[in-house]
């Protein structure tokens, strides 16, 4: 594949991860924050699969597969939490849910 190698994929993964991290930090909409977390997970997956290709070993792909399982569970539970949050407090803004302190 010519001049493209694992490094390029890693850079893409790094970029997506940072975008996800940025999204989690600066967005106030819980659903968008949640999507940003998914982005970070996917960046990690890309990194894993890329390393798997670089090493020539499929363990990284298996790990990515398991990460997807975790992500699926996380989404199911997280969205359920968001649903009950909206039902109870009628908001998806993270700043409106700051009662859990001290």
């Amino acid at each position, binding site marked *: *594949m*010519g*001049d*493209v*190698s694992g*490094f*390029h*994929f890693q850079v*893409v993964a*790094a*970029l*997506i991860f*940072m*975008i*996800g991290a*940025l999204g989690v*930090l*600066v*967005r*106030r909409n819980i*659903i*968008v924050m*949640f*999507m*940003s977390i998914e*982005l970070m997970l*996917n960046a990690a*997956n*890309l990194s894993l*699969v*890329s390393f*798997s*290709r*670089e090493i*020539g070993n*499929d363990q990284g*792909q*298996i790990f*990515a*597969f*398991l990460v*997807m*399982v*975790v*992500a*699926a*569970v*996380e*989404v*199911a*539970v997280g*969205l*359920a*939490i*968001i649903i009950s949050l*909206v*039902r109870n407090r009628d*908001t*998806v*803004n993270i700043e409106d849910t700051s009662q859990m302190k001290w």
Partner: protein
Amino acid sequence: MRTALFWVFSAAAVLSALGVIGNVRTPINSALSLVVSMLALAGLYVLLEAQFVGLIQVMVYAGAIVVLFLFVIMLLNLRGSGAIGAETQPIMKAIGALVAGGATLWLVRTLAAGRAPWPDVDDGFGTTRAIGEALYTDYVLSVQVAGVLLLAGIVAAVVLAKKKID
């Protein structure tokens, strides 16, 4: 061909990732950007000889997870972020973007130190059969744990989202 595909997919992935966090009008747009990003990533997986993971990426993320996102957004009928000023100040966003960019640069610099060419892989690499055999032999315990985790997630989701448990 593959190099071109790499650039197309990675540009799509990164740009649509930016779309996820940059779109403030409605979460639906973010979700759709997310789908595009996921599909582009699936393409990248296929370029990495990980066809199975790529397909699962499409099925799980595009086919289920983002659909769930959309389902919830539609169910809750969310349009926009709510009141004016609910989002972070632009100046803070800019600072955050700078910090993230700097960190990324540093990360890229670190990664660049470890550049290595790819080895050749045989035909079986990354196929359903290879992954399946590894999953059900060497990693069978992980699969079991993942199954238990899924079950717990299902139960948790039902308990959390149901208005009244009957």
